[in-house]
């Protein structure tokens, strides 16, 4: 199923429905979102893929940061960190984002993810830092209070790895994966969506961690820094296991836009044995 190529395909794929609930007339920005946890977002072990969760947090936290940058500016993600709670998600999920700090150059938002299917137990806690920019032609217009709706998919979508076109790189060790920059993975500004970078990091870390430990693992805690936009592609992620510890392995992931020969992102991921 095609879900459009207007720069919002990724948002529709992860399927969050976001409403502004704060006192926006007083300058308060709070966003609350829901996601039904579609089948195509599930991890092989049954929970949600960490890449999908990171994408949702990037969407929700970034949208709230953008609202906080209005009326002159909008934002671009600069770094996203996430800590997972040790529990399997049933869904649907609820995401709530608040502004922790709003400066002239950067806005920091947090995103708290809870599981409506498990008495709103905490699933993950994320913080997104966004840089404020002044887009050519002005920032996007949103009627306030804002509502960013994801139409429900009309058919089955491919799982995240397939939908994004993530593939192993022949001749490279486990943990080296890449994808092409198609219109579906671009954001409204024409560069690769931050959630897609996060998903690439997730898959690379999982492959490297599984090869190192010899058993299935899941990406858990992630600290992802966006260093440069990916515009050309293919975009390659190279994951290297740096050491073991009590909860899994620590993995360094470098993301490179091979078409520009530039490092696009760096992430440090903890990959834990899948429950």
């Amino acid at each position, binding site marked *: 199923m095609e879900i459009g190529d207007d720069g919002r395909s990724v948002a529709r794929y992860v399927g969050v429905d976001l409403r502004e609930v704060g006192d926006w007339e007083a300058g308060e920005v709070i966003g609350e979102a829901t996601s039904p946890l579609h089948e195509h977002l599930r991890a092989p072990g049954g929970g949600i893929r960490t890449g999908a969760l990171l994408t949702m947090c990037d969407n929700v936290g970034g949208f709230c940061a953008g609202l906080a940058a209005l009326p002159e500016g909008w934002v671009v993600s*600069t*770094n996203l*960190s996430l*800590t*997972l*709670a*040790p*529990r399997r998600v049933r869904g649907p999920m609820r995401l709530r984002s608040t502004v*922790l*700090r709003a*400066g002239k*150059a*950067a806005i*920091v938002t*947090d995103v708290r993810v809870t599981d409506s299917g498990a008495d709103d137990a*905490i699933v993950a*806690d994320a*913080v997104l*830092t966004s*840089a404020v920019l002044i887009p050519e032609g002005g920032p996007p217009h949103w009627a306030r209070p804002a509502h960013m709706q994801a139409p429900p998919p009309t058919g089955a979508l491919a799982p995240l790895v397939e939908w994004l076109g993530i593939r192993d790189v022949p001749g490279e060790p486990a943990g080296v994966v890449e994808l092409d920059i198609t219109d579906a993975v671009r954001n409204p500004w024409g560069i690769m969506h931050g959630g897609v970078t996060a998903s690439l990091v997730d898959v690379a870390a999982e492959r490297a961690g599984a090869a190192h430990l010899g058993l299935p693992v899941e990406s858990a*805690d992630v*600290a992802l*820094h966006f*260093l*440069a936009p990916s515009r050309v592609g293919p975009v390659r992620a190279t994951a290297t296991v*740096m*050491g*073991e*510890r*009590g*909860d899994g392995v*620590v993995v*360094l992931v470098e993301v490179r836009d091979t078409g520009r020969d530039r*490092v696009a992102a*760096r992430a*440090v991921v*903890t990959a834990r044995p899948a*429950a």
Partner: protein
Amino acid sequence: MVLDASYPPAQHMLRDLALTVEHHEDGTSVGRLPVADALLDGHGRVRAGILATLVDAIGGGLAAYAAAPGWIATADLDLQLSGAPTEVAAIDAVGRVLRAGRSTVVLAVDLFAGPAPLGLATMTFAVLPRRASNPVMPADRATGPQSFISGRASGFSGPALDAFGVRTVDAAGGHVELEPHPYVENSLGAVQGGVVATVVERAAEVALSHAAGRPLQPVGVQLTYLALAREGPIRSSVEVLGIARPAIDGLGNEPRWGSARVTLVDEGANRRTTIGRVVATRPIKRSVQERSVQERSVKEPHGDR
């Protein structure tokens, strides 16, 4: 290289840590932290918060060069530790700038315990307009064994936590307290970033260990600095995100790891200063530590970094 004769003062935690930091012409910075008993947790490992102080010291110097003539403020710090043992004479660190933009500087710091990789850190600094009170970085980077934090040996007479003044009020709630004083302050008169990390780490350690019913050891710290902590007291609160226990029957119910969100508030200023997320695991068994060292020694010989 003395940036400012008045900082750090004669009695200061950076001097007692005996840190040395060298800034090199190739853009890297190398740091060394002598390991002393004062820096260890109850399981014989150097505290994650202390290691974050080493990272912060290196990162601050690197970022100051990269941001010149502007000045800098720490925005975030992520530190993830492996299971390598810290029973070495010193922890070494190598830092480099990943990106230097108009508004932010991003850098990486790799930690080593002898030949073994010990941890990976990533930091972001916000670039600020220069104030008259900010130190001036020399035009030429120093090379060789020079440091703005001079020290010959660890100056602690007891645990660093006690010297910093970190006091546990309530373990169950992760309520830890610190009163700002010159010994732990940075050049802006606020609590130094590494000390903030140590408070966050300690708060999570006591709360997670209480929730787990057994000691858990912080191995990962994600920090977001929101405001300077200068008035005091600085107080923490902790939300335990969860404690992981084996999902397989027959392996018992012993907790394996836990994660927590920590909030620091400057009570005097009535504002939130820091958000932290901490992961803590069972204290690492010796066999895992040795295995990690052996693997790294083979794959990444000392000197290749």
